[in-house]
């Protein structure tokens, strides 16, 4: 791991997100969809809560994370620039981490405008600030897992559509795990529940920050990124 290399990759990718329509389309579309759900429910629930933001975002992320990240590596593979990149004196891990952080930064800027919901709701009612901070932390972590997995999806193919579908399939499976628990014996259910993204997210979104959840997120991100850099290294296995 070399911080300078990661920073170079990171800057280049962030610049290419924001120099192209990608960043703006992601941000605007996310805000439109979320805004529609948020405002239509707010007065029906008649509760001062950001629940809609925290419930809808992981669901939207199922599609947004693979879409944001699908070109990160597959495009380099297709255009041949990957050959330039991996013959530079930088580790494959640096490339992956730099690109992951860039996509995660875009996601951060996508979430950022939703802070105005917090401001609005806290003016018209009393809002549990601790739970909101927990919720945002949870969203950033869930997003990081989805993006890490999508970076892996982008690394395995030169076709962006394939990258999108592969990533969507993996994140969707992780997302759905705790929704099929009724059909399974409780011993298997416990394991699946621990593996499910949503289960850990609901803890944090309630404002409970448990080390078990943090360990889960950290290991999911680490594993996905490790696998992605192994895919880049594979060409060097004789």
């Amino acid at each position, binding site marked *: 791991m070399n911080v*300078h*290399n990661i920073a*170079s*990759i990171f800057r*280049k990718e962030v*610049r*290419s997100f924001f*120099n*192209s329509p990608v960043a703006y389309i992601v941000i605007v579309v996310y805000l439109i969809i979320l805004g529609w759900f948020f405002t239509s429910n707010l007065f029906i629930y008649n509760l001062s809560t950001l629940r809609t933001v925290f419930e809808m975002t992981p669901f939207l992320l199922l599609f947004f994370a693979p879409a944001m990240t699908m070109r990160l590596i597959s495009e380099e593979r297709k*255009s*041949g*620039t990957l*050959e*330039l*990149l*991996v*013959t*530079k*004196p*930088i*580790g494959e891990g640096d490339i992956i981490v730099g690109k992951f952080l860039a996509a995660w930064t875009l996601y951060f800027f996508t979430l950022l405008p939703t802070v105005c919901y917090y401001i609005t709701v806290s003016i018209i009612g009393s809002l549990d600030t601790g739970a909101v901070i927990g919720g945002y932390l949870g969203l950033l972590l869930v997003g990081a897992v989805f993006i890490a997995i999508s970076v892996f999806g982008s690394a395995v193919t030169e076709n962006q559509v394939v990258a999108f579908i592969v990533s969507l399939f993996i994140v969707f499976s992780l997302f759905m795990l705790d929704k099929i628990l009724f059909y399974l014996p409780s011993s298997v259910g416990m394991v699946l529940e621990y593996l499910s993204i949503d289960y850990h997210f609901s803890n944090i979104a309630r404002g409970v920050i448990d080390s078990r959840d943090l360990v889960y997120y950290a290991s999911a991100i680490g594993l996905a990124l490790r696998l992605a850099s192994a895919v880049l290294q594979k*060409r*060097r*296995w*004789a």
Partner: protein
Amino acid sequence: MSVSVSNLSKSYGTARAVDAISFDVHAGEILGFLGPNGAGKTTTMRMITSYLAPSGGTVRIEGRDVQRESLEVRRLVGYLPEQNPLYLDMNVLEYLEYAAQLQGVSASMIHQRRREMVYVCGLQEMKHKDIGQLSKGYRQRVGLAAAMIHDPRVLVLDEPTSGLDPNQIVEIRSLIQNIGREKTVILSTHILPEVQATCNRVIIINRGKIVADGPIAVLQRNLHGGEKVVVEIETGDADTFDLIAVQIRSIPAVTAVSLQEQNGASKRFTIETGQATDIRKELFRLCVTRGWTILELHREQTSLEDIFRQLTGGAAK
């Protein structure tokens, strides 16, 4: 020893793309890597630049093993891959800066190196344009500039002039020759005049094996067993072709004489010899004693095309 390749092999499944090749390249040498399409040129270059792992054998650059000390080796090498891949959405200066950062050029040197490369590669007018807007020739220069941005000791160029127009080819060639004075340059091509124009040594590879290695002049001498001499003489009317041919054949070592063209009294002959012996002196004496006027006399060199076909065409049959 700048680049040292020994017993290098690469197999894709059962196909052997590169089969136990060995060669050394020194600093100041421009090595042309020549072969028909699919001969294993690109695969070899990819192993030298640590993009692909060899199935067997080793590559050492400045004494360092490409596989075991991969990061150190990559710092010493500048690489222009086949098809010259570039980020089309970046502008030239941004891209060169990015390449310099990744190559580990220190922050204080980046702008100086970038300015030098823009100057050397003639990118002054294009430096603020997006690479996607540039013509193929300018893109090739950008690729070269990026490959040389960290002042590498070894430069590996995979078909550096493909797709360029004749003027651009001449420019890129002279650029490569300038670089090659101090550095080690390995370039691949299947364009023969390119090798003759730029390289001081050539390796011909066919079906993964080296079939010839040496300076072009030496290859020309070794491969063609004998020599060809062309002579144009003016003779009297009495001297018919047969008569002259018999006289020329009387020179030892001559194996064949053929008339190329006849223009009034002047006749043009091609004379072939069995060994690499110079028969021009004998020929001159013969003409003097016979009273023939020599209009032209020169040795014809085996062209690289002939060598190439001789070495690679036979194997393909």
